[in-house]
């Protein structure tokens, strides 16, 4: 599965310009140039790819067709389903077993709550586990939360909720310290100073990492700690929340949970519920391949939306500039931004730079698409995909032999499995669907507009505005997971649940009828359908 002779011809051109490029910095784009580039080549700006929602709190607003289809669909559960019984009762129900769900569970437990955590796959099967590059926090002397704030809000095109950004940047160092105290092995200098590097759109070196298993290290630490508290946190794997339960006062009082193996439904009654179901890359917007894990199908958006929660910025998705474009077996999988953070440049078929490698993700992705589709300067693979080179061999030249092996073991292993040596040869990349920039509207405590319903993690909108910076997602899952956990536990002490109902489903059906919609599908979809495909 190594590169073809034709691809090697292009690699020779990359090698020919390499020594000269080591000292070269491609100029950054001006604000106007960025704007123009995004409008012409970013997938968010393709009008045909979007639908206008016809029902629900976001009626009249745009979202991709694939998301509109699930948001406007019917519930798996019939509105006359009996929700009067109780199969499991708890103070706080956490839906989702990734980083946000786990940090929420830990903090809810620390604040006196009994917790049930339900998750569709295994605990830890989540995008958190796959995040490689790092986590931002302004803890170095030359940096500050204020500068971090400016980077976040500028990168997000000023559409961010200022209060959420403030919480994000001010909690960041505390989150790192919390994880350090739980034993997460961040990359450090011998005196304990954190090793931090740049990411796209950062104005200070603020990216903390744990080799290139940063997310995995955080996820397995959180998961291990949840397991240590199994007396108070009951984890139910292979169990999907398929519908929320509201009471006669409109408060959320739990969820209907499907046992994915027996297909039975269980009623989990909770004083407070936290949605932490993550993103939706497996809906494959605009046909894009994705970096996301198998279960990323936007379930939490669907549940919250049907219950009446507004969604923010669901008309913008993040396309990671560097998804694998070769070999075909790993098409679309993440090539961490840390590769660019460590100095690798992006080059076209001629071996020539066309964009600074440290632009924000949306701008960088648009530049890659322009190079391939707009200028026909991409490299075509045997299976007909297209990409540009990410010059990983530069890293050892810039930072000393062995850097790639030490700092990017997961990447080296990923490609080695398919016969590509990224220490020696560059990586062929093309933008891939990576992140849901928007989601459920929350306040600084993770509270949604529905009483006693909280949300945290990728399912939330507003923190990152219209574009998230690298390293702010591993951060936000912890910041808002912890906040939602604390708030839900405190709130659970005073909640007076009313009579459980599925009245919101009756009203949903009415809305569908009034809009003349006969949706053929039911949602949440829970898994993508790859059966019989290749």
């Amino acid at each position, binding site marked *: 599965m190594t590169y073809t002779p034709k691809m090697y011809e292009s690699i020779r051109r990359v090698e020919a310009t390499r020594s000269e490029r080591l000292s070269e910095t491609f100029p950054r784009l001006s604000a106007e140039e960025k704007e123009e580039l995004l409008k012409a080549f970013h997938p968010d700006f393709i009008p045909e790819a979007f639908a206008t929602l016809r029902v629900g709190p976001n009626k009249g607003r745009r979202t991709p067709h694939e998301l509109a289809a699930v948001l406007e669909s019917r519930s798996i559960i019939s509105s006359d389903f009996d929700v009067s019984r109780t199969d499991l009762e708890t103070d706080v129900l956490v839906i989702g077993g990734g980083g946000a769900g786990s940090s929420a569970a830990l903090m809810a437990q620390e604040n006196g709550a009994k917790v049930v955590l339900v998750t569709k796959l295994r605990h830890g099967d989540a995008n958190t586990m796959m995040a490689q590059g790092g986590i931002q926090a302004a803890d170095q002397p030359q940096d500050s939360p204020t500068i971090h704030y400016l980077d976040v809000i500028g990168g997000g095109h000023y559409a961010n909720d200022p209060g959420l950004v403030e919480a994000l940047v001010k909690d960041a160092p505390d989150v790192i310290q919390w994880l350090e105290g739980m034993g997460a092995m*961040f990359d450090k200098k011998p005196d304990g100073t954190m090793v931090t590097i740049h990411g796209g759109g950062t104005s200070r070196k603020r990216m903390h990492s744990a080799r290139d298993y940063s997310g995995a290290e955080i996820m397995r630490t959180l998961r291990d700690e949840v397991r240590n508290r199994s007396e108070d946190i009951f984890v139910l794997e292979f169990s999907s929340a398929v519908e929320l339960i509201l009471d006669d006062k409109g408060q959320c009082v739990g969820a209907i949970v499907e046992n994915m193996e027996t297909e039975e439904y269980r009623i989990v009654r909770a004083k407070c519920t936290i949605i932490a179901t993550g993103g939706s890359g497996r809906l494959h917007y605009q046909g894009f391949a994705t970096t996301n894990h198998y*279960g990323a199908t936007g379930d939490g958006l669907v549940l919250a939306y049907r219950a009446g929660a507004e969604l923010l910025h669901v008309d913008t998705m993040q396309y990671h500039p560097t998804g694998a474009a070769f070999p075909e077996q790993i098409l679309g999988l993440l090539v961490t931004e840390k590769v660019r953070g460590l100095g690798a440049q992006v080059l076209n078929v001629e071996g020539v730079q066309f964009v600074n490698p440290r632009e924000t993700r949306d701008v960088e992705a648009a530049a890659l698409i322009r190079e391939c589709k707009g200028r026909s300067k991409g490299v075509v693979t045997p299976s007909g995909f297209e990409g540009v080179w990410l010059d990983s061999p530069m890293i050892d030249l810039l930072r000393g032999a062995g850097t790639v092996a030490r700092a990017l073991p997961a990447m080296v292993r990923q490609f080695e499995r398919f016969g590509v040596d990224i220490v020696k040869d560059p990586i062929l990349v093309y933008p891939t669907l990576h992140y849901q920039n928007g989601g459920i509207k929350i306040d600084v405590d993770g509270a949604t507009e529905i009483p006693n319903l909280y949300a945290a993690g990728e399912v939330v909108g507003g923190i990152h505005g219209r574009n998230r910076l690298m390293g702010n997602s591993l951060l936000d899952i912890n910041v808002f997971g912890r906040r939602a956990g604390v708030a839900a536990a405190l709130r659970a002490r005073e909640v007076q649940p009313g009579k459980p109902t599925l009245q919101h489903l009756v009203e949903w059906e009415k809305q569908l009828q009034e809009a003349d919609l006969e949706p053929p599908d039911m949602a949440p979809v829970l*898994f993508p359908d790859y*059966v019989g495909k290749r």
Partner: protein
Amino acid sequence: MSEKEELIPIYIMGKQYMVPPSLTIQKAMEYSGYKLLRGCGCRAGFCGACGTLYRIAGDYRLKIGLACATMVEPNMYLTQIPFFPGEHKTYKLDKITATPETLFSIYPEVLRCLQCGTCTKSCPQDIDVRAYMAAAMRGDIAAVADKSFDCIMCGLCAARCPAEEVQYNIGILCRRLYGRYIAPRAQHLAERVEEIQAGKYDDEIAELMAMGKEDLAQRYNTRDIEPD
């Protein structure tokens, strides 16, 4: 890859399916009609959900791989090990110390390790599991933490271990002990947390929060960027 690709036989739990040879085991199972539930997670080699045991007809050796990262081969007999009943001991990290005694009291079976190396042969991450178990027997927590770092906790080592060790849980205990007690703490981090708690940045941030988009954009577009 091409339309003309010739199909090859693979055997999923003994049953034959004809699949394109360019697929991973995971995609070949889906191609064959399986809707995966267990045995599928990140699909990218990070989560350990898809540990797979296989043998090629005519070869006595058992092989291992992650279904998402291993290509099918002709006459591959495969089964997934989506769950393994390995024991996870609970402990309170803030109440223990990073000493060999801690490790031996939480997982006394560490000392039963035979050093046979089956674990190393069983690791889809090519981790030298035997070596970190040797370090564990010496009570060298830092070495276990370092050598086990790339572990994705798929459980294949434990599944094959004749001494019934749960290597991956020993690994994470040592990593957490190392991260909390042995690695030097980041002093600058602790200082910054205190500064924030004392409200040092409140006014600056409040000023940015009150700014209109144009002023913010002006500030953002002219901010200085730390050189490499």
